[in-house]
């Protein structure tokens, strides 16, 4: 049961559900939550390959650490953008944010 394939299937499921969440959500925070799910799926893949394939069993863990750091930065920036959008439009519905111009 504790095999590489179990982890790969789990990671594929998490990644796909994250993609579906990003597609079907209408609220910006819902999309952010789904993106966290996708990042975790990628991390699980790194950790599983690190345990079952890699001769040096630490390097994959370093990558997972970097993914966590990037996820933290991304969450902070995304939430501040969400707060700014909410203050401007009084809503975080992405369909209300269509009037944004570059």
């Amino acid at each position, binding site marked *: 049961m*504790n095999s590489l394939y179990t982890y790969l299937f789990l990671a594929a499921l998490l990644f796909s*559900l994250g993609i579906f969440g990003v597609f*079907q959500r209408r609220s910006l925070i819902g999309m952010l939550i789904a993106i966290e799910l996708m990042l975790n799926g990628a991390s699980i893949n790194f950790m599983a390959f690190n345990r079952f394939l890699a001769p040096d069993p630490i390097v994959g863990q370093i990558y*997972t650490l970097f993914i966590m750091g990037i996820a933290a930065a991304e969450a902070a920036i995304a939430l501040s953008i969400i707060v700014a959008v909410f203050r401007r439009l009084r809503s975080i519905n992405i369909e209300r944010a269509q009037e944004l111009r570059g």
Partner: protein
Amino acid sequence: MTDLIFNVFILLTIIPCFWVALSSNIVHAAFSLLITLFGIAGLYVLLGADFIGVIQVIVYIGGILVLIIFGVMMTQRGKLLPLSIQLPGKLFGAVLTGVILAALLLSATRTLWPVAAVLGEPQLTSAAIGDLLLGKYLIPFEIASVLLLAALIGAVLIARRSVRGE
């Protein structure tokens, strides 16, 4: 015993993950993400990565998830809008997701992974991770720290109330 714990963590990861993507209540989605992240931390420990498991709990559950729940609370106002899009778009998303899931599963099963015949015993990893981060991976580590600092300053700058505009 280990198999039982493994199955429990797998279920803890998979079941709430559907709520994360599909629930019609954003608070339920956020708390389901909490359980999923906890299950993933348990799986990391079972993969022999004690340090990463603890960091997962601290950073994701203690940091990112609290941020997300704060965001949920700060941006709810009045009547809750429907959280999901209408059917045609949803169907398109489901088809695309199915294609991606099929591709991932196919590539996972069709590839011949050179799995090590005998797995090494899991060992304590903190010291080795510290060695690598301050040795071979020093420059990415420093870049990540600068990135975090820039994200911190940028987040404050974007989210603050503008002084003139009010």
